[in-house]
């Protein structure tokens, strides 16, 4: 197994008897101390997310995972079905593994499947995705008391806060990690 001292987003590691994907890594200087990396890691089998703080420069074991491009097809409530882009093989993952990502899945959308020992265990969305706004309140007026933003529904059915200038039919870029508006898509 390869060792690395560079804990960064997107890296898969073997840690505490499991395989984890680093979904967030941030450099911190606690109080008056040295450099640490505070990571949010997701277990690729159970989808459990934990936070752990590594000493900067400590070696961790890199996990052997394969990231394969796939396409989302449909779901039946309990399971979500995908197709591998190269092999055309279909596979499914349970809804609890998909979790909150389901709000950005519509038929035909491309994402990645993470394979451990050849078995797809979870999916990863691109960090930013473009979606069409299907409904939002018209105009730039908004609510002058709160100001700044209004609700919009995108083509997947998800609700997103958008700036006042966004209109129905606009394509917008969304941060898939926290579901926030990034910018208008061109």
């Amino acid at each position: 197994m390869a060792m690395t001292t560079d804990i960064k987003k997107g890296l898969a590691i073997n840690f505490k008897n499991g395989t984890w994907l680093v979904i967030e890594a941030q450099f911190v200087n606690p109080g008056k101390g040295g450099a640490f990396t505070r990571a949010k890691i997701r277990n690729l089998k159970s989808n459990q997310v934990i936070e752990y703080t590594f000493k900067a420069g400590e070696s961790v074991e890199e996990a052997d995972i394969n990231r394969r491009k796939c396409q989302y097809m449909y779901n039946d409530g309990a399971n979500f079905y995908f197709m591998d882009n190269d092999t055309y093989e279909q596979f499914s993952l349970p809804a609890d593994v998909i979790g909150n990502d389901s709000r950005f899945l519509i038929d035909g959308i491309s994402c990645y499947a993470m394979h451990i020992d050849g078995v797809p265990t979870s999916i990863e969305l691109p960090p930013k995705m473009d979606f069409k706004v299907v409904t939002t309140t018209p105009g730039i007026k908004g609510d002058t008391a709160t100001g700044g933003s209004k609700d919009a529904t995108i083509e997947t059915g998800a609700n997103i806060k958008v700036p006042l200038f966004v209109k129905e039919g606009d394509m917008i870029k969304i941060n898939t990690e926290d579901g926030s508006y990034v910018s208008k898509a061109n």
Partner: protein
Amino acid sequence: MIYEKKIAIERNKLTKSLRNFFEKEKFLEVETPIMVKIPGMEPHLNVFETDLITPNKKTKLFLNHSPELQMKKLLGANFGNIFTLTKTFRNGEIGGNFHNPEFTMLEWYRIKADYKDLMKDCEKLVKTLAKKSEITYQNHKINIKTPWEKFSCEELFQKYCKISLDKNRTFKQLKKTSEEKNFDTNGCENWDDIFFKIFLNHIEPHLGKEKPTFVYDYPSTQAALAKKSSKNPFFAERFELYIGGIEIANAFSELTDSKEQKSRLIEEQKMRKKLKKTIFDIDGEFLASLESIQQNTAGIALGVDRLFMILMDKKNIEDVLLFPLNKILN
């Protein structure tokens, strides 16, 4: 980018009541510079650098990571109780829920006082800003009625890890004891590394969940500008305030012995060299100012954006900033 006017209104209200609070307590508000020639020596901090350009030369300047040295110069000039609300900068600290490289810092210094008096200031200040006796932060109810919880570092290590810091004063001892108790010490190269690795993973997440918590008496190695505890000089008179698991403030009974301060700065300068960080000069004016601070003085730095996050019940520091850097970079 989304600009929430509601956030600006709430911040504006909180900032006003913060200034009112210090006015009532008879503090003078002072403005400290954002660009400085000599920033504080904290070994691990990374600074932003810039150049002042005049016809014949370039002078290296830094964006201040703390107004501490300037505040102490004013104390030495007999300014009495002072506070500042200023922007501070830390390079590389971005991402996660609690960091923006540019952030608002509140620092105040109380004369004829020690760190325990600052704990009382914190209690009063947060109660004044919250305007109620219980706040809800991310579905956690936090009771802010005083007195708040107080634990020394020693007590916390005993409570959560069954480890005595005082009895494990060397790197070798602490490493052995920690490993016997199955704590991960991977990558730790010195005593402080182990302290932080355990503290961050096993202690910090519990702090300030039901009531705000003061963690006090830190190992002296982690308090270069603080007075050592008279009871046990292995520890120094420093505290941090935690609310909802988040570190909000850091305070000291100030060290005013300029000789000792000088030797600690030299140590830290060496450490910066070792860590290949930008090297700063030792600020002679700062050392001289310490000599003219006549009374016992205590000082504290409080992360204003973090405190506002808690009072406004926001999960991410970016949610209380109109222009978070992460969003600008996007």
